[in-house]
């Protein structure tokens, strides 16, 4: 594989990272909840996709009809609880870490520690690829990238143009003032967290299309997704997508040029540098925050 091919594949994989990061970034930026349990929701999304396709013989892309509502409710319930218990930003990190551990352990009790992968007859996408010129792109990552771009655009437009979006931004800026203007933060927060949960369902689906799942997979996502969230600027959807693409590219190129084990080293060194140089994200402040 050439470096150019690696870079382009990395861009596509970056779409998947961004897809995972949207939920974390939005709830952190808008609701001041650093929800590590979001990784657990993605894991559940992936397992549910696997389970529904395997048991009911559904097309994996159709399973979203089942998984998205389930995880919408899960995300909304979590936010309801965080809000009810008035959990601070730093404490949300600890509480949701506890929840993540619970979800992972529950998954390993239900689905065991074995790698689970959808079989080829239910998941035709895994082996398909698209050829453009001299480059080859696997269909799953292409789909993931396209979905991420579309979703980023939809979220961005919703936040910018609609009443709910403006209300959310006002709320993120200053809760007290927003509340004084009649914004019901509880309902909005629950709604946003629900949407974040549904996005976890999409991310889980996209992950399971081309990867095997095991209960400890979320630990692999941790570092990269937070890199994307912070690089993109917390709460900034467009920034998250760009950061996802950059991180994906960096990781892919590093593993081709150097060695696969070097990919995390390159990515995490980049985060550390980025944190030190631009602690508020790559893009100038503003954005959707």
């Amino acid at each position, binding site marked *: 594989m050439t470096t150019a091919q690696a870079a382009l594949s990395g861009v596509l994989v970056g779409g998947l990272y961004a897809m995972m990061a949207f939920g974390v970034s939005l709830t952190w930026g808008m609701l001041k909840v650093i929800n590590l349990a979001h990784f657990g929701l993605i894991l559940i999304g992936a397992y549910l996709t696997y389970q529904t396709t395997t048991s009911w013989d559904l097309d994996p892309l159709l399973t979203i009809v089942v998984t998205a509502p389930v995880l919408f409710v899960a995300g909304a319930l979590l936010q309801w609880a965080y809000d009810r218990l008035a959990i601070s930003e730093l*404490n949300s990190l600890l509480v949701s870490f506890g929840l993540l551990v619970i979800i992972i352990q529950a998954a390993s009790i239900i689905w065991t520690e074995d790698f689970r992968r959808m079989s080829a007859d239910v998941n035709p996408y895994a082996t398909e690829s698209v050829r453009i010129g001299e480059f080859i792109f696997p269909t799953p990552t292409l789909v993931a990238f396209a979905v991420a771009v579309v979703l980023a655009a939809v979220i961005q437009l919703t936040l910018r143009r609609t009443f709910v979006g403006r209300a959310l931004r006002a709320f993120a800026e200053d809760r007290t003032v927003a509340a004084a203007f009649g914004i019901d933060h509880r309902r909005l927060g629950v709604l946003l967290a629900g949407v974040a949960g549904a996005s976890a369902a999409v991310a889980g689906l996209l992950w399971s299309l081309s990867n095997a799942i095991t209960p400890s997979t979320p630990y692999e996502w941790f570092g990269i997704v937070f890199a994307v969230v912070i690089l993109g600027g917390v709460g900034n959807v467009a920034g998250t997508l760009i950061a996802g693409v950059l991180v994906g590219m960096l990781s892919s190129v590093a593993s081709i040029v150097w060695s696969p084990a*070097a990919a995390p080293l390159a990515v995490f060194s980049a985060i550390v540098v980025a944190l030190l140089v631009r602690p508020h994200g790559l893009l100038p402040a503003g954005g959707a925050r």
Partner: protein
Amino acid sequence: MRRGLAGIALTVAGLAVFPFVRESLGLTGFYVVILYTIFFWTAQATSWNLLSGYAGYFSFGQGAFVGVGAYTAAVLAGRHDVDYFITIPLAGALSVVLALVVGALAFRLRSLRGEIFALLTLAVPLILASVARLNTTIDGGQGIIVPAPEFPDVLGAFQDFLYLFNLAIAALAVAIAYAIQHSRFGWALIAIRDSEDVAEGLGVPTFRYKMFAIAASGLIGGISGAAFAQQIGFVNVQAVFGLTIPLFVIVMSVLGGRTHWLGPVIGATFIVLVQDRLVVAGLEKWRLIIFGAVLAFVVVAAPEGLQARLRARPAVSLGAFVLLAVGSVPIGVSDELLDAVGVGAVGAAAVALWPVSRRPVSRQPVSLWPVSVDASLQPTASSEPAVHVEPGGVVADSPAAAAPLVECIGLSRSFGGVHALDDLTLTMSEGELVGLVGPNGSGKTTLVNLLSGTMRPTRGRIRIVGDDTAGLAPHRVARSGVARTYQIPRPFPSMTVRDNVAMAIMFGREPRPLAAARLGAQEHLDFVHLTHLADVYPHEINLHERQLLEMARAIASNPRVLLLDEALAGLNPTEIDSAVAVIRRIHQAGITIVIVEHLLRVVNQLATRVVVLDRGHCLADGDPLTVMSEPAVVTAYLGRQPGA
């Protein structure tokens, strides 16, 4: 402090005898294993707690210290035949180096927030794991077998050696944590956790203390990591850099209590014991679910941890422990001693953590304050000859005669394109009480921030008693004799009113140890009439009292210049009068005061000199009455011509 350390030493001595008397007590070798596991986790949780509990900087990176320690021991002893005992100090040293690198990178950031630090530490073990996998001189990801060391036969079997070794490390860790908590260092860390920039403004060198804390954490973590290498016998990336270690230390410290040295000890003992009993009971699958739930529950319901709860309900908890431990035997729940202890511990913890509606600490319901003020302030007010002059009257000290105390030369500060202060030159002399007035946005608060070192000037110089302070860290500016108050009072919420003031004395221009500082605090509380509230916490007192606390804390650091940033905002007229009297008395005590205030009545009453700022420039400067009648000032302030 002596007694506490002696108590720890005695406990350790008692535990050290255990392996030699174990057989005569009829206990199996399994007790040795479970105890040294407790010691190991006690050391790790204590290491985590020094930075993350005391100073409030949460870390997910404990695995990095363990990993560096374990790999140092494993690589040197396993691959280069270095004596294991030589690798131990090296493990500690390397871990300290790592800690200092992380600290130097992270704590240099002025805008670093706790959440970002937490995520940064999440990356550190992942980077190290990656390095270990890549670098074949480490292990290239293959793992290393650690040879058992040669140790004197008196120590008994290998298990007994591990027991004593881990006990020694845990003892060292707990002793360090104890000593830190009972010294100025510990108070500095609490202040950092509560409100870092306020601490810095009081003269606490926060960067240095954070570096000390992370280095101490690294030292314990690394040495204990070297011991961990012996326990697992085979060091690989998954064992040390995974998320198990951070999860366990966090659960243990949070459960036990993050603000006290005893917290991690209790947490580690409890979690190791329960985990072991769960495994024995065949519930191994459930242990992580239980620990995750415990973490979430404790953070929400009992953030102060078991340590505080057990001390609040010692009798009930002990009763629950004894009752369940003894009671579980006859009904067949407990087959052996450890079962009984486990059941008892869970029961005691449940009783201790049982949510109670915390009653607010009762306070004197009757407000004694206005009465005592009237009684005590009238005489002082009438005995103020020099300051109690008619506005505009001749002031006793002529500014020109006194030595310059504060000099601003060509001082500018801009935010983006906005010039908050523009080429301001101003001199203040010893003994003045300068009223700093001006419309909103005229640069008053910026000037206070520049003088106190919270902000750096874009251009220009600041001299305090002849020393150039522009660009110095706030704590050094504080040491040169500048104290400030905040417009919205910012006391340290986890310290009593008295300790808030004592903090300022401990880190003031003449630093004193805690006991002396507490005594000294009394005097300053008397001075502002807060004596009756000395032992309550700041959240229990009202705004006026908090503003007086701000002032008491500011003068406790023994400043030459006191900057009062809208110290009267939001007070009612009676409260303003009493605060004005306090400010007068501070001034009479010989402290130069700069007061930013919107109430011209107050400024005219108090100030010996008024400086009017407008859009970053000095508009007028002189005695209050003259300045206030200048047309330019009236225009700037009221926006119209007099009489128009």
